[in-house]
């Protein structure tokens, strides 16, 4: 299968690339200039050069500087799973990088942004906004909840390299009747009635870099 050619929007520092190209980009971010003799690496690096994401001198385009900086030394990583779509997120004290779910061309959008805008970016991806407060029942079985009127079911989890389970996270079921937060449980997980403010605060607590909280 032919490797899709990346698309680079230099003016806004966004790159649309395949999983294979991203793997090489991440590797080059951590070990700049180390293309080596591996033909697969050379092919992907050449594709990134063909769209000017990488210059002939091996340096990344200036508009990618912050994004590459986050990929080089992330302080934390997260995965946002929204139905079948997964977005990977990396964070430093100043910036965040997001690798969106693949589009119909099998390209994933890589973008960087100031870390202060990350909660909003996540909120946009999960369509967090005003919802009715669930009434009457405060807790439900997750399976009961999923059987009826679900708009979205998403999870934001911290990903620690080498760990088998997420370090921390939040799982939300967005229904016509309001938001529910899933309580971790193996056999029969329960969901508690929640609201957009509580979910927004949970997102902030999860993704904010250490040291961003006032003393």
């Amino acid at each position, binding site marked *: 299968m032919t490797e899709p050619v990346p698309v680079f929007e230099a003016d806004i520092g966004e790159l649309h690339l395949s999983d294979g190209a991203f793997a090489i980009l991440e590797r080059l971010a951590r070990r700049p200039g180390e293309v080596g003799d591996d033909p697969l690496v050379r092919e992907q690096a050449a594709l990134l050069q063909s769209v000017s994401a990488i210059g002939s001198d091996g340096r990344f385009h200036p508009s990618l500087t912050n994004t590459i900086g986050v990929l080089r030394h992330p302080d934390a990583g997260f995965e946002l799973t929204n139905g079948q779509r997964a977005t990977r997120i990396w964070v430093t004290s100043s910036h965040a990088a997001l690798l969106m779910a693949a589009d119909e061309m099998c390209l994933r959008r890589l973008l960087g942004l*100031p*870390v*202060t*805008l*990350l*909660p*909003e970016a996540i*909120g*946009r991806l999960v369509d*967090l*906004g*005003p*919802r009715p*407060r669930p009434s009457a029942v405060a807790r439900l079985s997750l399976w009961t909840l999923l059987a009826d009127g679900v708009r979205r079911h998403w999870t934001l989890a911290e990903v620690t390299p080498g760990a088998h389970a997420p370090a921390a996270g939040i799982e939300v079921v967005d229904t016509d009747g309001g938001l529910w937060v899933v309580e971790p449980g193996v056999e029969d997980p329960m969901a508690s009635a929640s*609201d*957009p*403010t509580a979910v*927004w*605060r949970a997102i*902030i*607590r999860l993704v*904010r*870099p250490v040291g*961003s*909280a*006032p*003393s």
Partner: protein
Amino acid sequence: MPTGWETERDVAGALLSCTQPPPTGDRPTYLPPSILVTFDKLPDGTTFDSWLQDYRQSLVEFYDRLRLIDTEEIALGDVAAFRTLSHYLHQVVGGVCTDQWCIEGQRRVYVITCSSGALQYDDFADTFARVASGFSVTAR
């Protein structure tokens, strides 16, 4: 108002302005949290609901990339209030959260606007709610 915050009355069109002083010697890298109390007279023929509708539209026009996170009809004491949590882009500090309570009283709408950097919102949300819940309109 929170202890230690700098409070000013009748300043720049606001009844009350209250801001947490930045840490001594440090240039703040986030928007210092603040609480602002303003009021608007309800024009004749205008209801609280229609005022709210216009007000929400003005927020969208005023703030850059405003995103509504939550809205809530609540009671502050025996007075009905409307709460709005939103996020907007500040050109210097980036993401900002604004928690607002609009309260009708004596043909006026009082607006309590509580703002903080987006990443600091969780630290101040309870303080903001406590301040709003202590607000009351007293006839003179």
